[in-house]
């Protein structure tokens, strides 16, 4: 089975039962609704990023990773390019970060998206409950605006898929 090729892959990660860790899945659900008519956009949401996703990434022209950031200012929204990297020793092999997944895509499939972005929202609380901290709740509209603009920008670029 070959994963579907996408012009833009939105790849979210998080646990909705760990308060702000659920911001990735929340934004992914919004994106799924917003881009429902766009066949070129694909949304995948997982509790954790696993090696299997390397194949999906390798088949995409661009990717936007969505995650919360435990070490950033609560509610801060950051969009930045991400490069292959990581490969930390002692890997648990169940969960990878964006750089490690890109690295795996390159190693296994010899292919990388032309553009890879990481959108993070600073976590205010990662307690065992649903919902968001006040800081993340206030940041949600901005986070989605940034995500939507990034996806639009990626779709506006020339299609390099063969």
């Amino acid at each position, binding site marked *: 089975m070959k*994963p579907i090729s996408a012009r833009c892959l939105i790849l979210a990660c998080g646990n909705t039962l760990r308060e702000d860790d659920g911001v990735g899945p929340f934004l992914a659900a919004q994106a799924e609704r917003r881009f429902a008519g766009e066949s070129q956009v694909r949304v995948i949401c997982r509790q954790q990023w696993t090696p*299997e996703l*390397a194949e999906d990434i390798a088949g995409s022209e661009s990717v936007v990773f969505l995650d919360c950031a435990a070490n950033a200012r609560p509610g801060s929204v950051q969009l930045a390019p991400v490069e292959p990297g990581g490969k930390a020793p*002692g890997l*648990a*092999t169940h*969960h990878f970060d964006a750089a490690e997944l890109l690295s*795996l895509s390159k*190693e*296994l499939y010899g292919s990388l998206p032309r553009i890879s972005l990481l959108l993070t929202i600073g976590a205010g609380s990662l307690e065992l409950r649903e919902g968001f901290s006040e800081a993340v709740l206030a940041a949600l509209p901005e986070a989605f605006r940034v995500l939507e603009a990034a996806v639009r920008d990626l779709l506006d670029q020339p299609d390099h898929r063969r």
Partner: protein
Amino acid sequence: MSQTITIDPVTRLEGHGKITIQLNGQGEVEDAHFHVTQVRGFERFSEGRPFYEMPSLMARVCGICPVSHLLASARACEAIMSVRIPYTAAQLRRMLNLAQMVQSHALSFFHLSSPDLLLGMEADPKIRHIFGVAAARPELGRAGIGLRRFGQHIIELLGSKRIHTGWVVPGGVTEPLSAAKRDEMLAMLPEAYANIRLALDWYKKIAGNFKPEIEVFANFPSLFMGLINEDESIAFTVGALRLIDSKGNIVEDGIDANRFIEVIGEAVEPYSYTKFAYYKPLGYPEGSYRVGPLARLNIAKSMGTPLADKELAEFKQLADGPVLSSFYYHHARLVEILHGVEKIEMILNDPNILDKHVRATAGVNRLEGAGQAEAPRGTLHHHYKVDDNGLIKWANLVIATGQNNNAMNKGVLQAAKHYVKDGKFTEGILNRVEAVVRTFDPCLSCSTHAFGQMPLALTLVSSDGEVLDQVVR
């Protein structure tokens, strides 16, 4: 002065555990333990819940093998309801369980153990992981990912979710299979066959490089237990348990779920939250036994599918009688993946597989019920008691890792005694002791995971608590 070596946490396992190795004053290994350091409590907090909620609740025990818990739990509930589920539902459940087995075995072999097998036990830990495999043999990495995807996608097509599907319910399944989904699954088979063929051929080429490890990786006589069909072929979802000894003699046969507690007891040790299962007539620990792929292949007379039968015949040539070294769990796992792919194809081609009648209904007809299934790691047993309203009064789960617990501990001791000399150890020795546990692919607690990177520290501590040496990676 006695010393203790601690490996905490053990890496590349499902869940979190640690290993301690106790040395005497001469630096010789005196004892070793594999500790499971998590506590769960599912049996207690299910009390008071309606029995029909149990499959969905119990599936949350695990994120890797929730299907096994779903099935064992549903079968325990069906014993309470006294119903036999429709034929097509039974076939669909078989396929679900096999898909889970394929994806779980692929995770164990490719992601967790292939770094040791491909790069060597002594390889630098900085490269001894899935990235090292990807760099050295990308086709192996792709095969692993392909088999994981194959199993996970079948689970998703059947149950609408990759993990924790609610599709299996007491009485059967909630939805029949559509023709479109069946065809999608059939189209995935050629790639799955190619991937497992590649892995089996590669493994058989390199296995000879590990003769020293084969000798001391939990290589000792023990009992073996697993599910088989009436024709003595391997079974995963429906069947009865057989127990054989280390010579291959049948010790117990036809153990159904209701008889399980007649023959299997559980002991407790102060150093682990996981129980230690044993065969009651031999007592504890003499009655300890092994379950899982190695046990299943030792017990079964056939796999019931042509390609896997050829592999089973070859596997049985490894020993005159049951294969005793736990290193061969890796080999057995690959044979089971091949069987899983073949059996899924057979089920998909069953003319009744699209039948719409997939669920039986009933209320509480008995106040006690038990169910069992083969999880990837071995036999899983669920046992419940309910009141007249069907509310759970008592529950007990006997999981595969508990049934392998004593063998894992003995295996860690065997390897530690062989490799640790004069109180000295290297990173490669540390890795070999861990790798003994990895052969069993224990599932300590898949539904909880560490946040961030898992460190591994091996510490040498004197009897008065002084840290004498430490290796961290």
